């Protein structure tokens, strides 16, 4: 059970990281210079992503403990 969920988590993190990097690259490359709106949204996205990523790790550890 834990091994399968751990594998899912690793694959998910890789795909999520790849897509996030692609979006951030596009925003850095193509945004109009001097625009601050994108910085606020990028910061919020990174913060929320990390928050739920740590939640996922926490629950994964809890599953490990429970099994």
């Amino acid at each position, binding site marked *: 059970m834990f091994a399968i969920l751990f594998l899912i988590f690793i694959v998910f993190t890789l795909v999520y990281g790849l897509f996030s990097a692609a979006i951030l690259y596009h925003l850095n490359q193509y945004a109009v210079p001097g625009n601050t709106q994108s910085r606020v949204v990028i910061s919020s*996205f990174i913060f929320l992503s990390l928050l739920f990523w740590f939640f996922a790790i926490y629950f*994964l550890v809890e599953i490990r403990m429970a099994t």
Partner: protein
Amino acid sequence: MLILGEGEKILTVMRKHWFVMLRTVITIMVLLLLPPVVLTVLPLAHFGVEQVLVEQVTNFVLSLYVMVLILFLFLFWMDYFLDMWIVTTERIIDVTQEGLFNRTISEIPLSHIQDITIEVRGIIETFLKFGTMRIQTAGEREFLIEDTPYLYETKDIIVAELRKKQPTKESRDQEAKPHE
């Protein structure tokens, strides 16, 4: 990356009205309501395994689920943010972003503009003050700026810039004078 010519300045940047984003935002909000529903219903169900384990697995899956929604919302916002019309002192640039891998950029010089038409259709566009601007160019295709707010202000900016570029009566007279 946007590269401006020498002396060229950005006059305004237009994006679609927020109302265009509303449908996707509502869909994501509805999908975000799913985790509380699952967490409420789950204690009532029995899966033949320990309830604590079921709860932990559910919490784990819901964390990934919320991350997917955040990523989808961010991707949609990027699409909205990079889809824009840039009016500069020299040209109008139309940047169309469709997802991550499709990007179209077209532009017309301000000097090619012959006619600007503003269309506001329907009750929603009238109340929320957005619509379509049609720019007719000399011998080229029609340029469309769709679902954007501040249409009249943008038209005034373009017209003012065009007037600046037009030769004044004195300079025309000067040019018309025969050389002695």
